[in-house]
């Protein structure tokens, strides 16, 4: 892969990250002029106490000084303090990271089944399979993901009792090793299934239209003329070429799944980044929310960068551009 291409993409990702930092600062310090005041709205605090809090949250000094201080903090991995229990935001996020990586990772893998289904649907466009697949993805697209979560929770957990009603593990459980692992898996199944179902359609639609784009290509005709079986034409010539748009859209989808996880995690009390966001919004715990937004954005920007680089690997034509 050409170095110029890689550098260009990395610089692009860094510029987006810088934009997020500026946007984040702007949002929480300028749109919201006095965060301390809005945090403690309704509570009768002495002016001296307010001054002290402003110093603690770096709110004294000019806007530019505040921005420099904010960036310096970020570079040291310091995201400030959560209002809840005054714990460092970075610590709280660190604890919530693993459950979310587990949940979002599993549901992304589940949703990616949609890619294979989409290729098949596109290959046999207009077939009963295609119609079913397309209708299904339209249907799941129309439902808020957290509502699917509510319906599943109401039916499979509350009514049938097949799954626990929420959390990462059974309360008060001191299990370890395999049984702990199985308990967590049991708790994760339903939320992962919900997110998987909510996004399988998106992957399906993208893969389907990518496949349809390649259907009229001459090289497919050539492969058929060579006497290849239809199945082989699809597998060896159509699918590899339909893979490109799927790669770049997967990164965008990753951002959507992250967004969807916010409400779904809160439905299932899954102790991850999503539930942390939900609680920070409810608080409102603005320093926490600011840190979470930065982290989620950074994750999505990284996913996009990986997808871009992968694209360059799969399709060397873009390297020169």
């Amino acid at each position: 892969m050409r170095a110029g291409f890689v550098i260009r993409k990395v610089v692009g990702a860094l510029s987006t990250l810088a934009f997020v930092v500026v946007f984040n600062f702007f949002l929480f310090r300028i749109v919201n002029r006095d965060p301390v005041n809005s945090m403690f709205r309704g509570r009768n605090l002495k002016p001296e106490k307010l001054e002290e809090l402003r110093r603690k949250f770096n709110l004294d000094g000019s806007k530019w000084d505040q921005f420099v201080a904010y960036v310096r903090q970020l570079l040291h991995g310091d995201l400030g303090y959560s209002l809840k229990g005054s714990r460092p935001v970075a610590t709280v996020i660190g604890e919530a990271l693993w459950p979310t990586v587990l949940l979002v990772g599993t549901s992304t893998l589940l949703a990616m089944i949609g890619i294979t289904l989409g290729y098949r649907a596109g290959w046999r466009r207009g077939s009963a399979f295609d119609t079913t697949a397309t209708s299904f993805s339209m249907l799941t697209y129309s439902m808020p993901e957290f509502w699917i979560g509510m319906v599943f929770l109401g039916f499979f957990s509350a009514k049938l009792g097949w799954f626990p009603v929420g959390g990462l593990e059974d309360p008060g459980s001191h299990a370890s090793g395999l049984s702990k692992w199985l308990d967590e898996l049991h708790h994760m199944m339903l939320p992962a299934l919900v997110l998987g179902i909510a996004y399988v359609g998106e992957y399906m639609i993208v893969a389907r239209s990518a496949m349809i784009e390649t259907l009229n290509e001459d090289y497919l005709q050539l492969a058929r003329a060579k006497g290849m079986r239809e199945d082989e034409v699809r597998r060896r010539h159509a699918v590899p070429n339909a893979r490109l748009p799927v790669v770049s859209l997967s990164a965008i989808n990753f951002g959507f799944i992250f967004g969807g996880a916010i409400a779904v995690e809160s439905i299932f009390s899954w102790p991850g980044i999503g539930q942390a966001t939900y609680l920070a919004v409810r608080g409102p715990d603005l320093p926490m929310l600011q840190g979470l937004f930065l982290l989620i954005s950074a994750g999505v920007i990284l996913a996009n960068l990986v997808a871009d680089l992968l694209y360059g690997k799969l399709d060397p034509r873009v390297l020169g551009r």
Partner: protein
Amino acid sequence: MASLVLLIGFVILAIITPWITDRADFNAINTGDNPTNHPPDGDYLLGTDRYGRSVALQLMWGARVSLFVGFAATVLTIVIGVLIGLTAGFFGGWIDSVLMRITDWFLVIPFLPTAIVLAAVLERSLWTIVMVIGITSWPSSARLIRSQVLSVRERLYVDRARALGAGRLHIVGRHILPNVTPLILASATLAVPISILTETTLSFLGLGDPTEISWGGMLDQAQQSSAVTSGHWWYYLPPGVAIMLVVLAFTIFGRALEEVLDPRLRKR
């Protein structure tokens, strides 16, 4: 066709609701004697919530908010998208580069989390929700419109107008905008369901207008009162089904419109 009928039905229902029902029915004083968490029966078509308010009535009033936000946010999205897309596509050069760089930033940063933090720092109101959706969802329509403008700009009749001495505003208003309009219409129809879904999620997270009832707000209330684990299905199923129907209808209608306006899509 069925989707259009369904949409018109929902819009009419939303418009006439204030005439056929009384908002005062949600007041604590008027609902004090109502049974709470009552399952659906003859008296309460869709049951009641934990305060004894009729779910069916909430559903009707909620339609007003969801549709209003859906339309208003779409108008804002399209206006920003058209302004940026037209400017970038028509002027080109550094203006185009700068605008597209900003558009790319907004396209990459995750849409829903951005909407959430924006709504969280601003006042809770319907207009905030409208603004937040507008600010976060314009980039894709800006890109779409820019690419259309780029192709229209090179057509011969634009050259002809330019040769005849037409000014920039005249060219944009008379030649470019009319050619981009069908595309704007189609992308607007597809932006409405996204706006409705976003409103639902934001209200569910408690970021909606606390003085209004919306479908997302109903789901929030249901969640707060543990309706799901208590088996009070009449509280959280109807709003979700209503959202699904409206979004589905808009999406089907939008796709059909797109196909009529852009015959190339028909082969799909």
